[in-house]
């Protein structure tokens, strides 16, 4: 592997890892703060991707699609929390698994009814459709760099939101002791709704960003969900920084696995997870 192909794989790993981070961060926040196992989280990624496809076919522009898609995802997330998830906080994990599994079936069928079962492409916006030439034969698409950049900005934003704002303080407090936060006069239900809507929107946004490079297809949420589980397990439940680290680790393992061990690429991420489990069953960043 020469230097430029190596560089391309590194950039791809970072881009894939950061995109997974967007999905996994929502998942780990919902786990960590609300104690809910949400199998339908991958479906939000799919919803985002299909939203990008539908809205960009309507408006002819991916930017407009994303600008419309973000508020729609927020509303969608808040609605789901109000209608379904708010009833799950005191139930056991098994019932959470069951309900969210049912939701996946519903979302997949609605997708099939509303769109169809074909694979669709989404055009990369013209501004970013160029490629940067690395040498005579190799080049790197600008759009992938844009994805990485946007994800980095979001990760920094998330850090500020959680560590430096009043809302973030309430979120962190809520994950420690729900009742105490409530007795201090904070509306914990509103906090939960915000966190859930935020998680849905991060996953949907990842789907929208990924739509042009991965295209949109049935069942696209399932793969992302399980990889996100692996990330949450490696990083430690509830730890956003663990998720960032683990997502990058998974991004590198998967991308380089495909190049170096193509036959076992699908399984390599899980081998990584098994190794982490042997070493630290609670995840690398689990606080004691």
């Amino acid at each position, binding site marked *: 592997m020469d230097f430029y192909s190596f560089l391309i794989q590194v950039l791809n790993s970072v881009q894939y890892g950061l995109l997974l981070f967007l999905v996994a961060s929502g998942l780990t926040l919902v786990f960590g703060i609300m104690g809910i196992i949400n199998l339908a989280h991958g479906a939000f990624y799919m919803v985002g991707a299909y939203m990008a496809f539908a809205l960009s076919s309507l408006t002819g522009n991916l930017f407009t699609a994303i600008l419309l898609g973000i508020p729609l995802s927020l509303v969608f997330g808040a609605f789901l929390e109000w209608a379904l998830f708010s009833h799950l906080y005191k139930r056991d*994990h098994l019932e959470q*698994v*069951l309900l969210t599994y*049912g939701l996946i*079936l519903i979302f997949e069928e609605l997708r099939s009814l509303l769109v169809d079962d074909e694979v669709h492409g989404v055009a990369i916006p013209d501004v970013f459709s160029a490629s940067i030439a690395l040498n005579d034969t190799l080049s790197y698409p600008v759009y992938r760099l844009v994805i990485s950049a946007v994800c980095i900005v979001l990760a920094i934003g998330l850090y500020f939101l959680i560590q430096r704002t009043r809302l973030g303080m309430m979120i962190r407090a809520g994950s420690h002791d729900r009742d105490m936060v409530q007795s201090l006069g904070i509306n914990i239900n509103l906090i939960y709704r915000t966190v859930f809507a935020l998680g849905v929107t991060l996953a949907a946004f990842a789907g929208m960003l990924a739509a042009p490079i991965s295209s949109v297809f049935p069942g696209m949420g*399932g793969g992302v969900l399980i990889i996100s589980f692996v990330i949450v397990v490696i990083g430690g439940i509830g730890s956003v920084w663990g998720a960032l680290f683990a997502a990058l680790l998974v991004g590198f393992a998967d991308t380089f696995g495909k190049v170096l061990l193509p036959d076992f690429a699908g399984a390599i991420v899980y081998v990584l997870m098994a190794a982490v489990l042997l070493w630290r069953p609670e995840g690398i960043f689990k606080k004691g």
Partner: protein
Amino acid sequence: MSKHIPLILKLIALGGLLAFPMADSPFYTELVAKTVLFGIFAMSLDLLVGFTGLVSLGHAAYFGIAAYTVALMTPKYEAASFWTTFPSAIGISAAAALVVGIFVLRTKGIYFIMVTLAFAQMVFYLFHDTALGGGSDGIYLNLKPDTTLFGGKPFDLDNPFHLYYLIIATLVVVYLFLKLLLRSPFGKVLVGIKSNEHRMKSMGYRTFGYKLAAFSIAGGLAGAAGYLYAVLFGFVTPELMSWHQSGNVLLMVILGGMGNLVGALLGALAFVAMQEVFSTWTKHWQLVMGSVIVLSVLFLPGGLSAVPRRLKAALTGGGEK
């Protein structure tokens, strides 16, 4: 007398199953056979979920491993022996569960659910991506296993009725095995782990070993169901171990009420029946299925098995505890 009623009901049900092929409907005989083997699969998972308190979302892996074992052991143009493939399939899936168990049982709660799912997915990709098992197309089992033993052939799996009775016999054996297992001291420890693992530990039980044994046994029994599936339908695909399959079998266990072996069987029956009925209504039957699941979680906490208790409470005005 009244304490014999459950036994009598079970014998009547078994009689019904045994007499079913008399109805002379190959379609329904196959459907019942499929239901029964899913029932075996669900009972094996119930050992973990209902009795030991381990919610595994990756149980389809062992079902699929056994199905692939028979498919891979069968040469293209001749039949493999039933007497070697059946025990091998069960043994290999139990061994796979043992290895996975060493990893997953280090975790608890939400982690356990996610990790079992992830390991099952690893097995899925192993068969889906590599040439090991025919990739995503799977393998056809051209010839059903041969049952010749010491020169004689006690039964013939090419005969649908013989195969049907083999499946029923497996059900009875698995049921009795699990009953005995749960009545044994080993089974009591499992139930103890479910209600309070810390207490079991402080009483000096090495709970890890017990959980690992249960995980492996459940994997082996799921393997028996997977083997029968491969023989009944004559092909295996990676879809057999997809996480939807794991979700479906968990659904069967919950539908029938956890911690109840007959319930697991009824859950499988309810699941297959819903699948058949909804799919005649619409191509999008999963939409109906999903809605039923979501609504039942919202409005029937505790599952179907809690319905009689809730009804009783409502009728006697006793309020729900």
